[in-house]
């Protein structure tokens, strides 16, 4: 209560400032009049009475000022007037203001854009309740034949059953199948097979109906499916009677038992259906299934890793086909890490690097604006000296300077955030599909808050620097004469040069960073994937087992389809395979055996990809034949199966024996359901199947039907066709669709895309970091060049008189130009040297982003140096030319 009056008076002073001032005036006038009247009564003439009263009262303005201070509104009033003053100052120099605001907007906007991405991808929790406790469960090996990261498996899942670090654990597997029912046209959909526990781990239950029961998750139990909200709405028109309906997935009838809530997605946005995994404890041969678990509160992934690794040896008692020696030889250990890391994957280092780089851009922008402000402060020294002489207080000058930089930063931030918002809006179109969580990226409160914090710090520094520069301005000396007559103040010159050197150094780091990524990308593009992408169209056709019961029927269909495609105009070659290279992790990496060469007991067998291919596939993909022959349709009827092996397999497993005539098979020795050996009829070139930057692993290609040797029908059921045409295949897809409809109107045509786009997607992560870093580097270089140009222009302009004297004494335009150029290049060179040293010391940051080059790639460093010196020379050239053209007479009079 006591405070209210004070606040009211303070507010009144602010809001109704005029009337408060008027009252004050009236009160004081009244006082003086009463005083004058008193003097008049004492016998003084009116004029004298007034004079005495006025003298007695003293300085009215002083009293008023004291009252204003007393009201406490003075700070706000002064702030408003400072801001007004700053706006006036900025409007007087629109060029400076525009340059500063735009520079800051670029720096801040770039930052806000990257912060949006970092925030959306790395910082914001996933959309599951208490998602911080979700952890992925996988394994890591020492490398060699095994990939470095080995997924979870049902055997390990059973081995970990007693683990106490987790509340619950689940296995899942993503695949695709054709969804058919009487409701709508057949559809190719993403499906997840998961253990019943998945919904407990994620803590999300169906919005309608229920999740799998224990019985349904057991082999032989009823076939059921939980569908996504999206599928329910789009395909079934949000039918409330959906529960109990039967849909057919890959020929298997399943009862719909639940609909997930809107917005639920796992593990990516794609899946529309979740079906039980039905792990059979008597057959735990299923490998390569990712695992996820919910950690108990307070348990760290590291603790969980330790516990599970200790449990891992149990796997040898759970299944009989993994000898204990395998664990030892491969150095297999469990790896539990935050599930977010799994989702975000290898984008993390790229994003941090990008943020660091864009931070440098902001720093360059700031240095640029600081340089501009500094020059401005120099130019205003005389004005400031005058104001100091007239009694301005220094802290008031500081406040004004802060107001000015505050306005610049606010404008820059506003434009920058707008710029970031636009960038983020177009990002989904620019960024590759491999940028995870792209739907979570947006300019939100966090982003704006972080940006504002950065801007506030910068504004403060900017405001303080110019005042600090003018702190020691002595009014008398500054007013005493022309402040530009003498040589330049060495101290301010040094500061300016330091700023430019810092700028050039930072631009160097940026250029080196983006240059390295650019070179990596170039190297990656130069990698031979083992196949040719020109004019190859791909699509998938999957055959449900309900209508294509056995391998023969499957093969018959694919061969007939291929025959009809080959008959189309412009088609050169056509073939099919189970999974395209680079089109995602191939889950079919299995141990391999070579006849006559049993794996010694306790030694890890070699692992190679198991692939299926039709005749025509290798020609369509441009995969070269190295020896023997390719697969033929007649191989289907051979008594023993015919297979092709890749170079890698021939060299590492079959050599020194000639590969042709050798006999190989997938699977382990002495395991139930052992597959028979097939004859190697040919050797084909290696293909980079997993990733472009990973060396090819071996593969064995089976014919679709490999009688008696291997049950390939499940693999051949869903085939990707590769069709090579003589020209870009614009109309091919519609012809194929027509043909497919003629052959079987119930089959969907899925995954239609060019082979080139498959490779592009595989390069996506690196393309993203390359484009981001290149943009950052270009902006940084541009700003650095402007900074160099600005400072040299200014310094040259200040030296006008000195240059005039020199020329009058006989210096030629050439020597003048040379001296300015030399000056610029020394500054640029110093920055370059510091920048290179910094880039080399930061090399660890860049390493995860690079491919095929070292972080100190000499070519990159040399190229960057040349570019920088060239840009430095350009930025210096204009001021140098201006200096050389000076007329000595005019220059000497120049003020």
């Amino acid at each position, binding site marked *: 209560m006591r405070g209210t009056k004070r606040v009211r008076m303070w507010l009144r002073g602010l809001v109704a400032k005029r009337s408060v001032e008027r009252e004050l005036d009236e009160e004081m006038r009244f*006082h003086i009049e009463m005083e004058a009247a008193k003097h008049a009564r004492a016998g003084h003439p009116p004029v004298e009475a007034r004079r005495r009263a006025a003298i007695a009262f*003293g300085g009215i303005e002083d009293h008023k000022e004291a009252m204003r201070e007393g009201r406490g509104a003075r700070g706000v009033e002064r702030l408003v007037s400072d801001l007004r003053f700053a706006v006036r100052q900025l409007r007087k120099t629109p060029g400076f203001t525009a340059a500063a605001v735009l520079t800051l907007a670029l720096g801040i906007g770039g930052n806000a854009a990257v912060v949006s991405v970092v925030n959306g991808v790395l910082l914001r929790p996933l959309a599951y309740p208490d998602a911080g406790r979700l952890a992925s469960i996988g394994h890591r090996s020492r490398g060699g034949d095994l990939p470095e990261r080995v997924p979870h498996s049902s055997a390990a899942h059973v081995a970990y059953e007693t683990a106490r670090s987790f509340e619950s654990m689940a296995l899942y597997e993503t695949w695709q199948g054709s969804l058919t029912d009487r409701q709508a046209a057949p559809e190719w959909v993403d499906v997840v097979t998961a253990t019943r526990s998945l919904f407990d781990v994620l803590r999300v239950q169906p919005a309608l109906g229920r999740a799998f029961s224990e019985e349904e998750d057991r082999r032989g139990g009823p076939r059921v499916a939980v569908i996504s909200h999206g599928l329910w709405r789009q395909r079934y028109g949000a039918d409330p009677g959906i529960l109990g309906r039967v849909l057919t997935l890959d020929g298997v009838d399943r009862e719909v038992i639940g609909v997930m809530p809107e917005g639920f997605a796992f593990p990516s946005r794609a899946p529309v259906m979740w079906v039980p995994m039905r792990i059979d404890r008597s057959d735990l041969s299923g490998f390569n299934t990712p695992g996820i678990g919910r950690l108990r509160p307070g348990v760290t992934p590291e603790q969980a890793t330790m516990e599970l690794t200790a449990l891992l040896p149990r796997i040898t008692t759970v299944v009989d086909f993994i000898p204990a020696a395998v664990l030892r030889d491969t150095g297999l250990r469990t790896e539990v890490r935050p599930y977010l890391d799994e989702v975000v994957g290898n984008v993390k280092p790229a994003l941090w690097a990008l943020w660091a780089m864009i931070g440098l851009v902001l720093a360059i922008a700031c240095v640029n604006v600081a340089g501009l402000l500094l020059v401005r402060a120099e130019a205003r020294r005389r004005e400031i000296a005058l104001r100091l002489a007239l009694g301005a207080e220094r802290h008031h000058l500081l406040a004004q300077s802060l107001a000015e930089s505050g306005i610049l930063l606010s404008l820059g931030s506003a434009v920058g955030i707008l710029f970031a918002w636009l960038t983020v809006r177009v990002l989904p179109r620019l960024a590759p599909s491999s940028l995870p969580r792209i739907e979570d990226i947006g300019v939100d409160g966090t982003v704006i808050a972080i940006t504002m914090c950065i801007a506030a710090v910068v504004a403060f520094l900017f405001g303080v620097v110019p005042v600090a520069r003018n702190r020691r301005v002595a009014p008398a000396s500054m007013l005493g004469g022309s402040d530009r007559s003498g040589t330049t103040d060495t101290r301010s010159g040094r500061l300016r040069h330091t700023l430019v050197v810092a700028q050039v150094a930072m631009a160097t780091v940026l250029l080196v960073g983006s240059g390295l990524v650019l070179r990596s990308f170039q190297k990656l593009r130069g990698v031979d994937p083992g196949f040719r992408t020109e004019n190859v169209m791909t699509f998938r056709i999957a055959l449900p087992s309900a209508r294509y019961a056995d391998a023969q029927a499957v093969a018959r269909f694919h061969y007939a389809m291929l025959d009809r495609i080959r008959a189309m105009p412009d088609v050169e070659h056509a073939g099919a395979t189970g999974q395209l290279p680079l089109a995602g992790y191939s889950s079919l990496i299995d141990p391999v055996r070579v006849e006559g060469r049993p794996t010694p007991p306790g030694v890890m067998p070699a692992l190679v990809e198991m692939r299926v291919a039709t005749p025509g596939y290798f020609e369509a993909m441009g995969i070269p034949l190295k020896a023997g022959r390719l697969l033929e349709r007649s191989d289907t009827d051979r008594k023993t199966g015919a297979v092709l092996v890749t170079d890698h397999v021939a060299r590492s497993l079959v050599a020194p024996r000639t590969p042709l005539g050798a006999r190989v098979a997938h699977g382990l020795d002495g395991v139930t359901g052992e597959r028979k050996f097939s004859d190697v009829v040919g050797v084909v070139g290696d293909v980079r199947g997993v990733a472009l930057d990973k060396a090819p692993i071996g593969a064995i290609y089976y014919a679709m039907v490999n009688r008696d040797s291997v049950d390939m029908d499940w693999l051949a059921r869903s085939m990707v066709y590769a069709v090579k045409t003589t020209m870009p295949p614009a109309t091919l897809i519609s012809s194929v669709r027509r043909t497919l409809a003629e052959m079987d109107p119930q089959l969907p045509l899925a995954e239609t895309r060019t082979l080139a786009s498959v490779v592009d997607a595989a390069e996506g992560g690196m393309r993203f970091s390359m484009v981001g870093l290149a943009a950052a580097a270009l902006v940084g270089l541009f700003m650095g060049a402007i900074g160099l140009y600005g400072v040299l222009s200014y310094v040259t302009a200040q030296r006008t008189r000195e240059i005039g004297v020199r020329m009058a004494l006989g210096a030629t335009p050439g020597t003048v130009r040379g001296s300015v150029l030399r000056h610029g290049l020394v500054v640029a060179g110093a920055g370059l040297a510091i920048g290179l040293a910094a880039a080399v010391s930061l090399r660890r940051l860049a390493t995860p982003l690079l491919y095929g080059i070292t972080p100190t790639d000499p070519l990159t460093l040399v190229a960057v140096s040349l570019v920088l010196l060239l840009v430095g020379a350009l930025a210096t050239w204009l001021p140098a030319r201006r200096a050389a053209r000076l007329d000595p007479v005019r220059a000497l009079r120049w003020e």
Partner: protein
Amino acid sequence: MGESSAEPLRGTIDLLILRTLSLAPMHGWGITQRIQQLSDGVLEVNQGSLYPALQRLEQKEWIDSDWQVTDNNRRAKYYRLTPLGRRALGAETESWRRLVLAVEQLLRST
């Protein structure tokens, strides 16, 4: 106004104003006159400290103000003691007496 007049001690002006206003509501000039009068012309309040002090006291809600018409028909801002101000006057008077006694004692002790 002779040489005998003096600025009131810093800090005592609040007390003087409160005391003056405890007799009757008064405008600024009137307060200076009354203080002078009551102190037999010894204490003379400077306008530069009077008005800020009035503002301060008003913020503390010890006094209140409104515009009234004077005897000779002029508009003037009259200040009046609030109940809170009356209590404060008591306390301030008390502490002033203690101070005077203390100073007196000190002077006498030599």
